[in-house]
């Protein structure tokens, strides 16, 4: 930290100084930089370093280079689980992108209609589930979908879909989809709010001009509003991506650390937890855990870089 604040001393001395001694800049910055560096950046770097080591039973660590990653990607004991978790995570993300952000966009369009009565009431109520803990939401849906209680089948029967019901959370074929939709249900408020705010920011003259020029509501949406909110859709996508590839709480609450049935709901977050802490017969390994965390970090960084250099650049060119 000292090397970062030291140049400031010189430069403010050269620039006509508003203050006598710029020590105060260092004082203002020090607490934030210290806590942030110590408990956020340092652990991330140390995790990457640890991923290059292997530990034995005695606790001694030795440098093994990229061997942990080789194990993760190709050792039959590990790679199956890793690729399974990654694949499930991609499905989890795809469902969020299509369903959560699709519904969020739809709701935002409805809410941004001019002179809509009760708009803020709808907004507040629809956003409510987002405020609750993922764990609580997981348990709520676990109860509702529990065939023992029978509320889900009787509600479905009321709308004529009674035969459609199954133990969705318990079947290998439907568990991942069900868990994803629970998460979608909870977080639909976030894309809704962000897109709503972006839609409000579009000047009315633009929409009026398009209407005067003979554009119908559909073309106004497709050719005027949608291009203008593309940057927000980009932000929503990257937020969804980072949140999904970092998710853990919901699966852990609903399906436990084993992410059953038969690992069908296992995503990278639960895989990381099991690798790090161990579970039942599996012994936890900090170094392999660090390797999984580093792999997740790489995946998230790839996503962020694609967003920053691919999506965001193109969007800026588009809007200006």
């Amino acid at each position, binding site marked *: 930290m000292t090397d*970062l604040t030291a140049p*400031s001393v010189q*430069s*403010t001395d050269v*620039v006509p100084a*508003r203050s006598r001694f*710029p020590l*105060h*800049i260092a004082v*203002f*910055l020090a607490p*934030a930089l210290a*806590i942030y560096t*110590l*408990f*956020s*950046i340092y*652990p*991330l770097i140390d*995790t990457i370093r*640890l991923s290059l080591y292997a530990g034995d039973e005695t606790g001694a660590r030795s440098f093994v280079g990229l061997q942990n990653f080789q194990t993760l990607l190709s050792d039959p004991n590990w790679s199956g689980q890793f690729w399974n978790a990654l694949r499930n995570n991609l499905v989890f993300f795809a469902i969020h992108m299509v369903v959560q952000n699709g519904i969020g966009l739809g709701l935002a369009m409805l*809410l941004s209609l001019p002179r*809509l009565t*009760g708009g803020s009431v709808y*907004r*507040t*109520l*629809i*956003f*409510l*589930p987002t405020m*609750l*803990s*993922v*764990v*609580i939401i997981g348990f*709520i*849906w676990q*109860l*509702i979908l529990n065939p023992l*209680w*029978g*509320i889900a089948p009787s509600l479905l029967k009321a709308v004529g879909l009674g035969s459609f019901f199954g133990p969705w959370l318990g079947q290998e074929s439907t568990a991942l989809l069900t868990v994803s939709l629970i998460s979608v249900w909870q977080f639909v408020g976030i894309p809704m*709010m962000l897109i709503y*705010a972006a839609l409000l920011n579009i000047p009315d003259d633009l929409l009026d001009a398009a209407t005067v020029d003979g554009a119908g509501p559909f073309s106004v949406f497709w050719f005027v509003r949608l291009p203008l909110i593309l940057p927000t859709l980009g*932000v929503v996508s*990257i937020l969804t991506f980072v949140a999904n590839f*970092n998710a*853990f*709480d919901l699966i*852990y*609450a609903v399906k436990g650390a084993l992410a059953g049935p038969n690992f069908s709901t296992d995503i990278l977050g639960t895989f990381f937890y099991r690798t*790090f*802490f161990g579970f039942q017969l599996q012994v936890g390994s*900090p170094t392999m855990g*660090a390797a999984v*965390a*580093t792999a997740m*970090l790489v995946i*998230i960084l790839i996503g962020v870089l694609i967003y920053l250099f691919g999506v965001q650049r193109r969007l800026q060119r588009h809007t200006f």
Partner: protein
Amino acid sequence: MTFRPGRIAVHIALILYTILALGPILLILINAFKTRRAIFADPLGLPNGQTWTTIGFDRVFANSDFGLYFFNSLTVTLVSLVLIVLIGAMAAWALTEYKFTGNTLLSLYLAIGIMVPIRLGSVSILRMMVELNLVNTLTALILVYVAQGLPLAILILGEFIQQIPKDLRDAARCDGVSEYRIFFSIILPLISPAIATVAVFTMVPVWNDLWFPLILAPGDGKQTITLGVQQFIGQYVTDWNAVLASLTLAIAPVLVLYLLFSRYLVRGLTAGAVK
């Protein structure tokens, strides 16, 4: 008020979605106050004279330290929020007010934390907390949450500080007031409206988090309410009254606070998004 069929369709769609969003939560709340028989016989009915009971709540309080967990969560959340706002405002002030070499670099360095989840450093965080003897303490959670919340708070508070008129501080500087006093007596009181926005982004994730309590403070009566409920339900899966009551106890405070402050929260969220 003109009668337009299109508008009615819009309201029907919004009302249906609102029911979908609130239904599951209401279902838990109403059944928490019903007897076991009524929970199964008539899950959609409101509790009445015959079916009303608080036996689930009695069992929760008898078999768990719910009050303690609640207090732990409250302590962690409030202390984290105060530290994030204070320390974050100091850093945001330094970065927006003073021009110095490395300013941009520092801002970028702080921005890493917005995109990269601190969770991925958990292996090292746990090692560090073991060495510092902070495992199973609320201090460990607070330190991690402050580190996690600072980057976004600095971004939001920085934007807010930029909107404060320059004349104010320049006048103070002419009078020879120190930079510290300018910050603590002029700037800090002026940014209090931004606290609502910072709170949306920092308090809610902290209150709801399961990961760090599970890893850093899973026992010794240091559980937060989210972890406490998770552990409690794990033990009492088959006791529907107790499960529903514990869920209700976890939902209720958030629900009350949200409905009281939703105007600020929603405004903060949409204002932040515009930027």
